Every structure is written in structure tokens, then in C-alpha cells.
């Protein structure tokens, strides 16, 4: 998972969960903050951005040429720079995670793919081949490019607008509404879970055994589930109180304007 740091150490489970939750909240906050900043992409209609994003991702997926994927990545980086997205944040927080994940997956392919040998690892029976390098390069570069494009979109557009723009692809209204509600409650529950683990951490003295950690993890999931159910009841009552009878309306119409 993005922003997830795997680590070891006693009592580490609570800390690592907090870190993971914190990273996700941080990303959501950064996105919201950046979407209201002035920049090239912030001024565009969300539908244009969503359509362009899918087109670019499709190009990098269809092409078999490394340089085309690299060119799309370059476009994504330039767009990010013009939309006041910090390249440092992109590089350290996201590309690095993608690189480690897909790099680890792609590395064996360098040696396993048959073909002309380019370099033989000294002392080992491993040889890097030309097709191996190309296939691993395609794998990593495609993953990086798609990640960059998606981040450029979500860092320059308020999330409800991204979801609403999906209507353009004939995604049914009910699905968009559920997506929107879920997005909102993910943010709320991230905070709830974060508070739960913070308070647990502050009450924990000394090292926990793995069994204890597991017990805490399962109990926390249970508590989170009961809070989820309670919240869902409250949301339903609130929807009814506001006159919800099963019809769905979405506010803000998008209009593409000439600039």
C-alpha cells in the first residue's frame, strides 16, 4: 500500500499502522490543499483532465517502445511542475514506493528472460540479457508513468469533482454517489482509526508480544467495525431527516469555458 512502511521491532505494529494511516491522511490533505492552489491544471475542466489522463495511460500501456513511455512520463512531470505540485514530494513519497515495489517484481525478469547476454554477474550463475532489461524497464517505467499521471490528476482536482467527471464515461449515478460517500467516510474513518491507535500507543508501556499485538489488531478492527455500523445508522437517519427518498441529485454542473 502506498505510504506503507514495513518494519520490524517490538511493539512496531501500532507505530506502523499509525504511520500508514498518517501517510494516507497526509496525502488527502495535500491533494485538497493543492487542488485550490493556482496552476495550469487546476484551471482546467475536470472532465478534460480525466479524459486526458485515461488517454495518456492508454498510450503508455499500448506502446511497445520504451521512449514513448518515457516521453509520457516527461509530459506528466512537466504538467506537475506547471501545476505547483512539488516534484520533491512526488519523487520521495510516491515514485520511490512504486520503484521499490515494481522494481522488486521486475528485477528477476532481467535474468530470467532468455536472449543475448549483456552482463554476467561475477561469481553467480546469473546473466542479464538485453530482452530482460527491456521488459523490466517497460514494467517499471509503465508503473511509474501511470502513478505520476494519476497523482497529477488527484493533486489538482477536488476529489468530488474527479468522481463527478466519471459520469462522462456513463458510470451510473448510484455508483458515483456511493463512491463519493465512501470517499468522505474514508477520510473520517482514517481519523477515527488514527485516534484509536494513538490512544492505544499512549496507553502501552513496554514491549508487546506478537500474540498481544495480534489481539490488539483484531480488537481494533472489531471496534472500528462497530463504529462503522453505528455511523452508517446515523448517516441513514440523517439522510431520511433531510428528505431522502431514493432519488439522487448531484450539484455543480461542469461547463467547459473558453480561456
Amino acid at each position, binding site marked *: *500500500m502506498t505510504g*506503507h512502511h*514495513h518494519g520490524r521491532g517490538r511493539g512496531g*505494529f501500532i507505530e506502523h*499502522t499509525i504511520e*500508514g494511516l498518517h501517510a494516507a491522511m497526509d496525502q*488527502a490533505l495535500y491533494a485538497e490543499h493543492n487542488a485550490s492552489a493556482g496552476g495550469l491544471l487546476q484551471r482546467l475542466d475536470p472532465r478534460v483532465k480525466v479524459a486526458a*489522463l485515461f488517454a495518456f*495511460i492508454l498510450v*503508455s*500501456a*499500448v506502446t*511497445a517502445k520504451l521512449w514513448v513511455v518515457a516521453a509520457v512520463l516527461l509530459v506528466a512531470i512537466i504538467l506537475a511542475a506547471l501545476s505547483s505540485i512539488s516534484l520533491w514530494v512526488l519523487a520521495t513519497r*510516491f515514485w520511490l514506493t*512504486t520503484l521499490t515495489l*515494481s522494481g522488486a517484481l*521486475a528485477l*528477476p*525478469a532481467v535474468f*530470467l*528472460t532468455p*536472449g543475448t547476454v549483456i552482463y554476467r554477474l561475477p561469481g553467480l550463475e546469473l546473466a542479464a540479457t538485453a*530482452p530482460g532489461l527491456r*521488459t523490466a524497464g*517497460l*514494467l517499471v517505467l*509503465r*508503473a511509474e508513468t*501511470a502513478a505520476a499521471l*494519476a497523482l497529477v*490528476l*488527484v493533486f489538482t482536482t477536488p*476529489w468530488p469533482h474527479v468522481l463527478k467527471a466519471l459520469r462522462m464515461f456513463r458510470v*451510473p449515478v*448510484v*455508483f458515483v454517489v*456511493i463512491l463519493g*460517500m*465512501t*470517499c468522505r*467516510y*474514508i477520510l473520517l*474513518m482514517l481519523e477515527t*482509526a488514527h485516534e484509536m491507535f494513538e490512544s492505544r500507543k499512549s496507553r502501552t508501556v513496554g514491549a508487546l508480544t*506478537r500474540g498481544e499485538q*495480534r489481539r490488539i*489488531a*483484531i480488537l481494533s*478492527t*472489531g471496534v*472500528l*467495525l*462497530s463504529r*462503522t*455500523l453505528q*455511523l*452508517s*445508522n446515523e448517516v*441513514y437517519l440523517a*439522510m431520511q431527516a433531510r428528505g431522502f427518498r431514493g432519488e439522487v441529485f448531484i450539484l455543480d454542473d461542469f461547463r467547459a469555458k473558453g480561456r
Partner: protein
Amino acid sequence: MHIPDGYLSPSSCAALYAGSAPFWYIALGRVKKALHTRLVPLISLFSAFCFLIMMFNLPLPGGTTGHAVGIGLATVVLGPWAAMLAVSVALVIQALFFGDGGITAIGANCFNMAIVGSLVTYVCYRAMAGRSPIASFRRVVAAGLAGYMAINVSALLAAIEFGIQPLLFRDALGTPLYCPYPLSVSIPAMMIGHLTIAGMAELIVSAGLVALLQQSDPSLLKATAGAATALRETGTGTGTRRLQSLWAGLCTLMILTPLGILAVGTAWGEWVASDFSNPAIRQQIAGASLQEAAPEHAPKGLEQLSHVWTAPFSHYAPPYIRSATFGYFLSAMFGAGLIILACVSMGQFMRGLGQ
């Protein structure tokens, strides 16, 4: 198990989007009918819950950590169709906003985890929980095992999708364009982790939370147990009738098994060591493998491993029976019988747990 962008070819992604579409269509249709009920907030909140528990890294026995997906619990509480939507929504949000799982692979990830996962959970849970009371321990075990099965079936699907890429998509020089690992690498690589770690995490979470709901809010478990109680009310009527037709179908299939003898050629990839030295079979292998000739000798590993176990009904033709048709038929009876026996004893065992 979240497939990233670039691992599956665009055509595979499109095929999996198309495969998911009818399920989404039916699920949305069902939700639309229940739009005025508390189902919509429940789906949203469950989706958010699934998203969150994917972030909890459970410490597992053996020193590793793994996270659950929540398919098991979502299906037991919401039923398969609503669970499909809830998990799909969580996956879409992960891919769009948090970069976990590719955007082109949303269809694939939803198909593997949300759709097949919730259907597998539902079938396993209903089969194992039977008509046991809602508060019985049998339901806890059933939910755990159903979650475990679902994760592993999803992982297997993902592994197959990965593994067929190098067979189908290469450039002129033979370089794989997408995932480069064949099935022989992708299946063990995916399954070892899921049969142990990820499956265990899902098992613990599904079983633990169903046990919690039995104590705190048993009414939530009724959605997937309702039909079972209804069956009991109408006596043995529909249940037995449905079962009778299944038995009839099974018998017909068993009687038809000797038809298998009519099939020509060998099953691709199911060759034995001696097939490699038999010219007629070598020709069949080449014919079925795009005219690629089979290696001169049987691979060493195949030859060594082939002596490890000799099946009593080798080639579905027990040596002590003269007639091939009868031998085939007997093998079918024996195989089906073993499976039925295993299921019945598992059911007995679970009933014992329930009491």
C-alpha cells in the same frame, strides 16, 4: 494482489472490464431497488471499512505480517451483490486516489477480488454454515474458511492473468511486453504468499469479526443466513428438490464419462515422461503447441518426480479391469465418491463444532 498498471496488456484489461460489467450491472440494479433503505450508507461505510483494514498489518504466527481485504466479512453481512459493489468501490478509490493498483487494471482487480471473491465467499459460507443457528460457532469457522478460500481463488486468478501475458504478448524479438513471468513462476509466487500469509489474515479477520457480530449485533448476520432459515420453515421442500436435481445431474455426468475416451490426442501440458520418446505422441504435442517440437528427452525433473507417486487408477484405467469404458466409469464413481465423502465428513465435523 493489487495488479499495478503495465503488468497486463490493454486487451486483457479490456476483457476483464467486460467480464466485470455484467456483475456490476446486476449488482447496481439490485441496489437501485433498495435505494430508499439503509443499504446505500451501509455499502459506503463497509467500503470505507474495507479500505481501512487493508491498512492494518496484522502480525501473524511465524513472524510475518499481512493484511486482510475484508471480502469475507463484507459478503457475510451484505450478501454477495452488495459486497461486490462495496469492495469494488474501495478498489476504485485505492487506484484513483492512493495509487494502489493500476487504473487500467481496475477491471481486473475488481473481477478477481470483488466479484469472484464475494461469490466464492458466499458459496463457501452458505455450504459450510448450513442451517446452523446464527450464534453457532460453526458460522465463525465457516466465515473464516470462506474468506480464506476467497483470497486464494482471487490470487490464483491474478496469477493466471499474469502468467498468460508472456505467452500472448511479445514483440518481434520475443521480449515480453507486459508481465514477463510464465504460469510456472507466477502461480507458485502468488500462491505461496496467499495460501499462508494473506489467506491467514483474511481468515482471522473474517472469523474474528463474525464472532464479534454474533455477540454485538446478530441481526446483521441474517442477510446471508435468511434463506437458510426460510428453507427450514418450508420444511424440506425446495431444499431437497434443488438437491435432487443436482444429484440427477451428477449421475447423468457420471454415466456420460466414457465419452472422454472419444477425445483424441493428449491433454496439453499433462504429458508423462514416456510420451517424449513416443513418436506418435511427439507429433500430437507439436501439433497442439504451434508446431514447436517437444524436447528430445523428457525433462530431467519430470522424469525424477514421475516416480514419486503411482496412482492406483492410473490414466483412469485400473489395470485389473478389462473394459476401458467400465474402467473409466469406475474411476468417475470413485473420484466423485471420494469428493462427496470428504464434503459429508467436513459437514459432520462442522455440525459437531456447532453443537
